[in-house]
Protein backbone atom coordinates (compact mmCIF):
# COMPACT_ATOMS: atom_id res chain seq x y z
CA UNK A 1 0.00 0.00 0.00
CA UNK A 2 1.48 3.29 -1.03
CA UNK A 3 -0.31 6.29 0.30
CA UNK A 4 -0.37 9.40 -1.81
CA UNK A 5 0.82 11.68 0.95
CA UNK A 6 3.90 9.53 1.36
CA UNK A 7 5.05 10.27 -2.14
CA UNK A 8 4.55 13.99 -1.89
CA UNK A 9 6.48 14.14 1.34
CA UNK A 10 10.07 15.24 0.98
CA UNK A 11 12.72 12.53 1.17
CA UNK A 12 14.41 12.37 4.56
CA UNK A 13 18.15 11.91 4.41
CA UNK A 14 20.67 11.47 7.21
CA UNK A 15 24.04 13.04 6.32
CA UNK A 16 26.73 11.87 8.68
CA UNK A 17 30.32 10.85 9.26
CA UNK A 18 31.60 7.82 11.13
CA UNK A 19 35.06 6.85 12.30
CA UNK A 20 37.83 9.32 13.09
CA UNK A 21 38.07 11.96 10.40
CA UNK A 22 36.41 15.32 10.96
CA UNK A 23 36.56 17.14 7.63
CA UNK A 24 33.02 18.23 6.88
CA UNK A 25 33.26 20.59 3.91
CA UNK A 26 31.93 17.87 1.63
CA UNK A 27 29.09 16.77 3.87
CA UNK A 28 27.99 20.36 4.42
CA UNK A 29 27.90 21.06 0.71
CA UNK A 30 25.99 17.88 -0.03
CA UNK A 31 23.53 18.66 2.76
CA UNK A 32 22.94 22.08 1.22
CA UNK A 33 22.45 20.54 -2.24
CA UNK A 34 19.86 18.12 -0.92
CA UNK A 35 18.07 20.87 0.99
CA UNK A 36 18.01 23.02 -2.12
CA UNK A 37 16.48 20.11 -3.95
CA UNK A 38 13.64 20.09 -1.44
CA UNK A 39 14.79 17.25 0.81
CA UNK A 40 14.87 17.20 4.59
CA UNK A 41 18.37 16.52 5.81
CA UNK A 42 19.22 15.41 9.31
CA UNK A 43 22.78 16.61 9.81
CA UNK A 44 25.18 15.33 12.44
CA UNK A 45 28.61 16.15 13.71
CA UNK A 46 31.44 13.82 12.68
CA UNK A 47 32.58 10.75 14.64
CA UNK A 48 29.18 9.13 14.99
CA UNK A 49 29.36 5.61 16.28
CA UNK A 50 27.60 2.99 14.23
CA UNK A 51 25.01 2.35 16.94
CA UNK A 52 24.20 6.02 16.97
CA UNK A 53 23.76 6.22 13.23
CA UNK A 54 21.34 3.31 13.40
CA UNK A 55 19.45 4.95 16.25
CA UNK A 56 19.25 8.26 14.38
CA UNK A 57 18.03 6.54 11.24
CA UNK A 58 15.38 4.78 13.29
CA UNK A 59 14.14 7.79 15.27
CA UNK A 60 14.11 10.07 12.28
CA UNK A 61 12.67 7.42 9.97
CA UNK A 62 15.01 8.37 7.15
CA UNK A 63 14.95 6.95 3.66
CA UNK A 64 18.63 7.37 2.83
CA UNK A 65 21.85 7.64 4.80
CA UNK A 66 24.78 9.50 3.24
CA UNK A 67 28.14 8.75 4.80
CA UNK A 68 30.96 11.13 4.00
CA UNK A 69 34.46 9.68 4.20
CA UNK A 70 37.61 11.61 3.33
CA UNK A 71 40.12 9.35 5.05
CA UNK A 72 39.62 5.64 5.48
CA UNK A 73 36.50 5.65 7.59
CA UNK A 74 34.54 4.07 4.76
CA UNK A 75 36.13 0.81 5.90
CA UNK A 76 33.57 0.79 8.72
CA UNK A 77 30.56 1.08 6.44
CA UNK A 78 30.09 -2.70 6.01
CA UNK A 79 29.60 -2.85 9.79
CA UNK A 80 26.97 -0.15 9.50
CA UNK A 81 25.15 -2.17 6.85
CA UNK A 82 24.97 -5.19 9.14
CA UNK A 83 23.80 -3.06 12.06
CA UNK A 84 21.02 -1.48 9.96
CA UNK A 85 19.80 -4.87 8.84
CA UNK A 86 19.83 -6.12 12.45
CA UNK A 87 17.74 -3.14 13.53
CA UNK A 88 15.10 -3.89 10.92
CA UNK A 89 16.17 -0.98 8.76
CA UNK A 90 17.08 -3.02 5.72
CA UNK A 91 14.99 -0.74 3.52
CA UNK A 92 17.15 2.31 4.30
CA UNK A 93 19.54 3.02 1.41
CA UNK A 94 23.14 3.93 2.11
CA UNK A 95 25.38 6.02 -0.11
CA UNK A 96 29.02 6.89 0.54
CA UNK A 97 30.71 10.03 -0.71
CA UNK A 98 34.36 11.02 -0.61
CA UNK A 99 37.70 9.40 -1.22
CA UNK A 100 37.19 5.69 -1.73
CA UNK A 101 39.76 3.59 -3.59
CA UNK A 102 38.39 1.44 -6.40
CA UNK A 103 39.03 -1.86 -4.63
CA UNK A 104 37.23 -0.66 -1.55
CA UNK A 105 34.31 0.54 -3.62
CA UNK A 106 33.65 -2.99 -4.80
CA UNK A 107 33.68 -4.17 -1.18
CA UNK A 108 31.21 -1.48 -0.18
CA UNK A 109 28.83 -2.37 -2.99
CA UNK A 110 29.08 -6.02 -1.98
CA UNK A 111 28.15 -5.03 1.54
CA UNK A 112 24.98 -3.41 0.26
CA UNK A 113 25.95 0.20 -0.29
CA UNK A 114 23.76 1.60 -3.07
CA UNK A 115 26.19 4.08 -4.54
CA UNK A 116 29.65 5.57 -4.03
CA UNK A 117 30.14 9.20 -5.04
CA UNK A 118 33.68 10.27 -5.80
CA UNK A 119 35.16 13.77 -5.67
CA UNK A 120 33.94 15.74 -8.65
CA UNK A 121 30.48 14.16 -8.65
CA UNK A 122 27.98 16.60 -10.14
CA UNK A 123 25.25 18.00 -7.95
CA UNK A 124 22.49 16.83 -10.26
CA UNK A 125 23.78 13.28 -10.19
CA UNK A 126 23.92 13.24 -6.41
CA UNK A 127 20.48 14.77 -6.01
CA UNK A 128 18.90 12.57 -8.65
CA UNK A 129 20.39 9.39 -7.26
CA UNK A 130 19.41 10.17 -3.67
CA UNK A 131 15.85 11.05 -4.69
CA UNK A 132 15.52 7.81 -6.62
CA UNK A 133 16.92 5.79 -3.73
CA UNK A 134 14.57 7.49 -1.27
CA UNK A 135 11.58 6.56 -3.41
CA UNK A 136 12.86 3.01 -3.62
CA UNK A 137 13.37 2.83 0.14
CA UNK A 138 9.78 3.92 0.76
CA UNK A 139 8.41 1.38 -1.68
CA UNK A 140 10.38 -1.40 -0.07
CA UNK A 141 9.26 -0.43 3.39
CA UNK A 142 5.63 -0.38 2.32
CA UNK A 143 6.06 -3.83 0.87
CA UNK A 144 7.63 -5.08 4.09
CA UNK A 145 4.72 -3.64 6.02
CA UNK A 146 2.13 -5.12 3.73
CA UNK A 147 3.62 -8.58 3.80
Amino acid at each position, binding site marked *: MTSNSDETFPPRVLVTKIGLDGHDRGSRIVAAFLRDAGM*EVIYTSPWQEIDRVVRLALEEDVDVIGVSSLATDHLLVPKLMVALEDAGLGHVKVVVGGIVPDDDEADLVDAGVSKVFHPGSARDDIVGEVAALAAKARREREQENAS
Partner: protein
Amino acid sequence: MTGSISGPAVQEQSLVKRMRAGELGALARVITELERLSKSAPQLLEDMAPFLGQAIVVGFTGPPGAGKSTLVNAYIGRLRAENKTVGVIAVDPSSPISGGAILGDRIRMSEHTGDDGVFIRSLASRGHVGGLSPAAVRIIDAMDASGRDVIIVETVGAGQSNIDVAEIADIRVVLSAPGLGDDIQAMKAGILEIADLLVVNKADLPDAERTYRQLQFALSLRRGGGDTSVVKTVATTGGGVDELAAKIAEIATAASRSPAERRRRRARQLLAWAVTDLIDQRIRKEGGPEVDRLCDEILTAELSPIDAARRLLGT
Protein backbone atom coordinates in the same frame (compact mmCIF):
# COMPACT_ATOMS: atom_id res chain seq x y z
CA MET B 1 -3.09 -4.59 0.70
CA THR B 2 -5.31 -7.62 0.90
CA GLY B 3 -9.08 -7.62 0.82
CA SER B 4 -9.36 -8.29 4.51
CA ILE B 5 -10.94 -5.41 6.35
CA SER B 6 -9.55 -6.31 9.73
CA GLY B 7 -6.06 -6.94 8.36
CA PRO B 8 -4.61 -3.45 8.46
CA ALA B 9 -6.46 -2.55 11.65
CA VAL B 10 -4.90 -5.45 13.48
CA GLN B 11 -1.55 -4.43 12.16
CA GLU B 12 -1.92 -0.78 13.22
CA GLN B 13 -3.23 -1.81 16.60
CA SER B 14 -0.17 -3.91 17.11
CA LEU B 15 1.92 -0.94 16.05
CA VAL B 16 0.45 1.12 18.89
CA LYS B 17 0.88 -1.79 21.23
CA ARG B 18 4.49 -2.18 20.22
CA MET B 19 5.03 1.51 20.65
CA ARG B 20 3.47 1.36 24.11
CA ALA B 21 5.76 -1.53 24.94
CA GLY B 22 8.72 0.74 24.28
CA GLU B 23 9.68 -0.31 20.79
CA LEU B 24 11.35 2.78 19.36
CA GLY B 25 10.96 1.71 15.76
CA ALA B 26 7.19 1.47 16.25
CA LEU B 27 7.03 4.97 17.70
CA ALA B 28 9.12 6.30 14.80
CA ARG B 29 6.74 4.61 12.41
CA VAL B 30 3.60 5.93 14.08
CA ILE B 31 5.04 9.43 13.97
CA THR B 32 5.66 9.10 10.25
CA GLU B 33 2.17 7.83 9.56
CA LEU B 34 0.55 10.63 11.52
CA GLU B 35 2.92 13.25 10.20
CA ARG B 36 2.06 12.33 6.63
CA LEU B 37 -1.59 11.69 7.39
CA SER B 38 -1.34 8.36 5.69
CA LYS B 39 -4.36 6.14 5.27
CA SER B 40 -3.68 4.37 8.50
CA ALA B 41 -3.62 7.61 10.50
CA PRO B 42 -7.29 7.66 11.57
CA GLN B 43 -7.07 4.10 12.82
CA LEU B 44 -3.86 4.84 14.68
CA LEU B 45 -5.42 7.85 16.36
CA GLU B 46 -8.38 5.75 17.38
CA ASP B 47 -6.12 3.11 18.89
CA MET B 48 -4.09 5.75 20.66
CA ALA B 49 -7.09 7.62 22.07
CA PRO B 50 -7.15 6.01 25.51
CA PHE B 51 -3.54 6.97 26.12
CA LEU B 52 -3.59 10.58 25.03
CA GLY B 53 -3.27 13.71 27.12
CA GLN B 54 -1.03 12.27 29.83
CA ALA B 55 2.27 13.93 28.94
CA ILE B 56 3.29 17.44 29.89
CA VAL B 57 4.26 19.46 26.82
CA VAL B 58 6.97 22.04 27.39
CA GLY B 59 7.79 24.53 24.64
CA PHE B 60 11.24 26.11 24.45
CA THR B 61 11.58 29.08 22.19
CA GLY B 62 13.74 32.14 21.67
CA PRO B 63 16.00 33.82 19.17
CA PRO B 64 18.85 32.01 17.39
CA GLY B 65 22.04 32.05 19.41
CA ALA B 66 20.27 31.94 22.76
CA GLY B 67 21.45 28.38 23.30
CA LYS B 68 18.10 26.58 23.16
CA SER B 69 19.39 23.19 22.08
CA THR B 70 22.07 23.21 24.72
CA LEU B 71 19.59 24.17 27.41
CA VAL B 72 17.12 21.55 26.25
CA ASN B 73 19.95 19.07 26.37
CA ALA B 74 20.70 19.97 29.98
CA TYR B 75 17.01 19.89 30.90
CA ILE B 76 16.68 16.42 29.38
CA GLY B 77 19.56 15.29 31.59
CA ARG B 78 17.72 16.65 34.60
CA LEU B 79 14.50 14.83 33.66
CA ARG B 80 16.36 11.60 33.10
CA ALA B 81 17.91 11.87 36.54
CA GLU B 82 14.32 11.82 37.86
CA ASN B 83 13.69 8.78 35.70
CA LYS B 84 11.19 10.57 33.51
CA THR B 85 10.94 9.54 29.87
CA VAL B 86 11.25 12.30 27.33
CA GLY B 87 10.20 13.03 23.78
CA VAL B 88 11.74 15.93 21.91
CA ILE B 89 10.55 17.64 18.75
CA ALA B 90 13.36 19.78 17.38
CA VAL B 91 12.05 22.23 14.80
CA ASP B 92 14.23 23.89 12.18
CA PRO B 93 13.02 26.23 9.48
CA SER B 94 12.44 24.99 5.95
CA SER B 95 13.97 26.82 3.04
CA PRO B 96 11.29 29.12 1.66
CA ILE B 97 12.63 28.52 -1.83
CA SER B 98 13.04 24.78 -2.09
CA GLY B 99 10.94 23.60 0.82
CA GLY B 100 13.88 21.49 1.94
CA ALA B 101 15.58 21.83 5.30
CA ILE B 102 18.74 21.05 7.17
CA LEU B 103 17.81 19.71 10.57
CA GLY B 104 20.82 20.08 12.83
CA ASP B 105 19.27 20.95 16.15
CA ARG B 106 19.77 17.60 17.70
CA ILE B 107 23.53 17.83 17.25
CA ARG B 108 23.72 19.41 20.69
CA MET B 109 21.61 16.70 22.25
CA SER B 110 23.74 13.83 20.98
CA GLU B 111 24.73 12.62 24.43
CA HIS B 112 21.19 11.27 24.84
CA THR B 113 21.20 9.38 21.56
CA GLY B 114 21.94 6.04 23.18
CA ASP B 115 19.31 6.43 25.91
CA ASP B 116 16.00 4.69 25.21
CA GLY B 117 14.33 7.08 27.62
CA VAL B 118 14.88 9.93 25.19
CA PHE B 119 13.31 9.98 21.74
CA ILE B 120 14.19 12.90 19.49
CA ARG B 121 12.51 13.70 16.22
CA SER B 122 13.58 16.55 13.95
CA LEU B 123 10.83 18.44 12.20
CA ALA B 124 10.99 21.01 9.44
CA SER B 125 8.64 23.96 9.71
CA ARG B 126 7.58 23.17 6.13
CA GLY B 127 6.69 26.66 5.12
CA HIS B 128 3.77 26.96 7.47
CA VAL B 129 2.85 30.59 8.07
CA GLY B 130 3.54 30.38 11.75
CA GLY B 131 6.84 28.55 11.45
CA LEU B 132 5.61 25.44 13.18
CA SER B 133 4.26 22.65 11.07
CA PRO B 134 0.81 21.40 12.11
CA ALA B 135 2.45 18.00 12.04
CA ALA B 136 3.98 18.94 15.39
CA VAL B 137 0.62 18.41 17.09
CA ARG B 138 0.32 14.91 15.70
CA ILE B 139 3.89 14.06 16.63
CA ILE B 140 3.13 15.20 20.16
CA ASP B 141 0.15 12.86 20.14
CA ALA B 142 2.30 9.93 19.07
CA MET B 143 4.92 10.58 21.72
CA ASP B 144 2.19 11.16 24.28
CA ALA B 145 0.45 7.90 23.49
CA SER B 146 3.73 6.03 23.64
CA GLY B 147 3.87 6.93 27.31
CA ARG B 148 6.53 9.64 27.38
CA ASP B 149 6.27 11.71 30.57
CA VAL B 150 7.49 14.98 29.16
CA ILE B 151 7.47 16.21 25.57
CA ILE B 152 9.70 19.10 24.66
CA VAL B 153 9.03 21.21 21.58
CA GLU B 154 12.00 23.33 20.60
CA THR B 155 11.51 25.98 17.95
CA VAL B 156 14.13 28.14 16.33
CA GLY B 157 13.60 31.72 15.36
CA ALA B 158 11.93 34.75 16.78
CA GLY B 159 8.52 36.22 16.21
CA GLN B 160 5.46 34.43 14.99
CA SER B 161 6.66 30.84 15.36
CA ASN B 162 7.16 31.38 19.04
CA ILE B 163 3.56 32.28 19.47
CA ASP B 164 2.52 29.12 17.69
CA VAL B 165 4.36 26.96 20.11
CA ALA B 166 2.50 28.72 22.89
CA GLU B 167 -0.75 27.35 21.67
CA ILE B 168 0.27 23.74 21.68
CA ALA B 169 2.49 23.63 24.75
CA ASP B 170 1.25 23.33 28.31
CA ILE B 171 4.20 25.36 29.56
CA ARG B 172 5.95 28.01 27.54
CA VAL B 173 9.60 28.69 28.28
CA VAL B 174 11.07 31.68 26.47
CA LEU B 175 14.85 32.12 26.28
CA SER B 176 17.07 35.05 25.75
CA ALA B 177 20.77 35.59 26.18
CA PRO B 178 23.09 38.56 26.48
CA GLY B 179 24.26 40.09 23.24
CA LEU B 180 21.03 39.48 21.35
CA GLY B 181 19.84 43.06 21.84
CA ASP B 182 17.69 43.44 18.77
CA ASP B 183 15.88 40.27 19.47
CA ILE B 184 14.77 41.44 22.84
CA GLN B 185 12.95 44.22 21.06
CA ALA B 186 11.28 41.63 18.89
CA MET B 187 10.49 39.55 21.94
CA LYS B 188 8.75 42.41 23.63
CA ALA B 189 6.41 42.63 20.70
CA GLY B 190 4.69 39.36 21.28
CA ILE B 191 6.55 36.56 22.79
CA LEU B 192 6.74 37.92 26.30
CA GLU B 193 2.98 37.90 26.32
CA ILE B 194 2.86 34.16 26.18
CA ALA B 195 5.75 33.13 28.39
CA ASP B 196 5.08 31.13 31.53
CA LEU B 197 8.75 31.26 32.35
CA LEU B 198 11.60 33.40 31.07
CA VAL B 199 15.20 32.27 30.94
CA VAL B 200 18.37 34.30 30.61
CA ASN B 201 20.81 31.74 29.30
CA LYS B 202 24.59 32.28 29.12
CA ALA B 203 24.20 33.98 32.48
CA ASP B 204 27.96 33.82 32.97
CA LEU B 205 28.51 36.45 30.27
CA PRO B 206 29.23 40.00 31.41
CA ASP B 207 26.03 41.48 29.98
CA ALA B 208 23.72 38.90 31.55
CA GLU B 209 22.58 41.18 34.36
CA ARG B 210 21.49 43.79 31.85
CA THR B 211 19.48 41.28 29.86
CA TYR B 212 17.91 40.06 33.10
CA ARG B 213 16.86 43.55 34.08
CA GLN B 214 15.55 44.30 30.61
CA LEU B 215 13.35 41.23 30.73
CA GLN B 216 12.06 42.06 34.17
CA PHE B 217 11.27 45.56 33.06
CA ALA B 218 9.46 44.28 30.00
CA LEU B 219 7.50 41.89 32.21
CA SER B 220 6.51 44.67 34.57
CA LEU B 221 4.75 46.34 31.65
CA ARG B 222 2.82 43.21 30.84
CA ARG B 223 -0.58 42.63 32.33
CA GLY B 224 -0.21 40.03 35.05
CA GLY B 225 3.46 39.80 34.17
CA GLY B 226 4.49 40.11 37.77
CA ASP B 227 3.78 36.43 38.34
CA THR B 228 6.21 35.28 35.67
CA SER B 229 9.62 34.20 36.90
CA VAL B 230 12.92 34.90 35.22
CA VAL B 231 15.53 32.18 35.68
CA LYS B 232 19.24 32.47 34.93
CA THR B 233 21.00 29.49 33.40
CA VAL B 234 24.36 28.51 31.98
CA ALA B 235 23.33 25.64 29.73
CA THR B 236 26.88 24.61 28.89
CA THR B 237 27.73 23.86 32.52
CA GLY B 238 24.24 23.00 33.72
CA GLY B 239 24.10 26.03 35.99
CA GLY B 240 20.56 27.01 36.97
CA VAL B 241 19.03 24.00 35.26
CA ASP B 242 17.79 22.55 38.58
CA GLU B 243 15.93 25.75 39.27
CA LEU B 244 14.53 25.78 35.75
CA ALA B 245 13.28 22.21 36.13
CA ALA B 246 11.75 22.98 39.50
CA LYS B 247 9.92 26.04 38.13
CA ILE B 248 8.58 24.06 35.20
CA ALA B 249 7.33 21.34 37.56
CA GLU B 250 5.73 23.99 39.77
CA ILE B 251 3.89 25.59 36.87
CA ALA B 252 2.80 22.18 35.63
CA THR B 253 1.24 21.37 39.00
CA ALA B 254 -0.48 24.72 39.30
CA ALA B 255 -1.95 24.52 35.83
CA SER B 256 -3.00 20.91 36.08
CA ARG B 257 -5.40 20.35 33.26
CA SER B 258 -7.32 17.23 32.47
CA PRO B 259 -6.02 15.06 29.64
CA ALA B 260 -9.04 15.97 27.55
CA GLU B 261 -8.39 19.65 28.14
CA ARG B 262 -4.79 19.33 27.02
CA ARG B 263 -5.75 17.59 23.85
CA ARG B 264 -8.54 20.00 23.08
CA ARG B 265 -6.11 22.83 23.47
CA ARG B 266 -3.82 21.32 20.86
CA ALA B 267 -6.74 20.57 18.58
CA ARG B 268 -7.91 24.14 18.97
CA GLN B 269 -4.62 25.29 17.52
CA LEU B 270 -4.97 22.88 14.63
CA LEU B 271 -8.40 24.31 13.95
CA ALA B 272 -7.12 27.87 14.18
CA TRP B 273 -4.34 27.08 11.74
CA ALA B 274 -6.70 25.47 9.31
CA VAL B 275 -9.12 28.39 9.49
CA THR B 276 -6.32 30.89 9.00
CA ASP B 277 -5.01 29.02 5.99
CA LEU B 278 -8.45 28.79 4.49
CA ILE B 279 -9.33 32.44 4.94
CA ASP B 280 -5.91 33.53 3.79
CA GLN B 281 -6.31 31.51 0.65
CA ARG B 282 -9.82 32.83 0.03
CA ILE B 283 -8.80 36.44 0.37
CA ARG B 284 -5.53 36.32 -1.50
CA LYS B 285 -6.17 33.83 -4.24
CA GLU B 286 -9.88 33.82 -4.77
CA GLY B 287 -10.86 37.37 -3.91
CA GLY B 288 -14.31 38.19 -5.31
CA PRO B 289 -16.48 41.31 -5.40
CA GLU B 290 -16.99 41.49 -1.64
CA VAL B 291 -13.27 41.31 -0.96
CA ASP B 292 -12.59 43.94 -3.62
CA ARG B 293 -15.19 46.25 -2.14
CA LEU B 294 -13.72 45.88 1.36
CA CYS B 295 -10.22 46.51 0.03
CA ASP B 296 -11.35 49.70 -1.66
CA GLU B 297 -12.93 50.89 1.55
CA ILE B 298 -9.71 50.17 3.46
CA LEU B 299 -7.76 52.14 0.86
CA THR B 300 -10.06 55.14 1.14
CA ALA B 301 -9.86 54.88 4.93
CA GLU B 302 -13.61 54.33 5.19
CA LEU B 303 -12.93 51.14 7.08
CA SER B 304 -10.07 50.00 9.27
CA PRO B 305 -8.60 46.63 8.29
CA ILE B 306 -9.86 45.08 11.51
CA ASP B 307 -13.40 46.31 10.92
CA ALA B 308 -13.23 45.02 7.37
CA ALA B 309 -12.10 41.64 8.69
CA ARG B 310 -14.98 41.57 11.16
CA ARG B 311 -17.43 42.32 8.41
CA LEU B 312 -15.95 39.61 6.21
CA LEU B 313 -16.30 37.02 8.94
CA GLY B 314 -19.73 38.29 9.91
CA THR B 315 -18.80 38.83 13.53
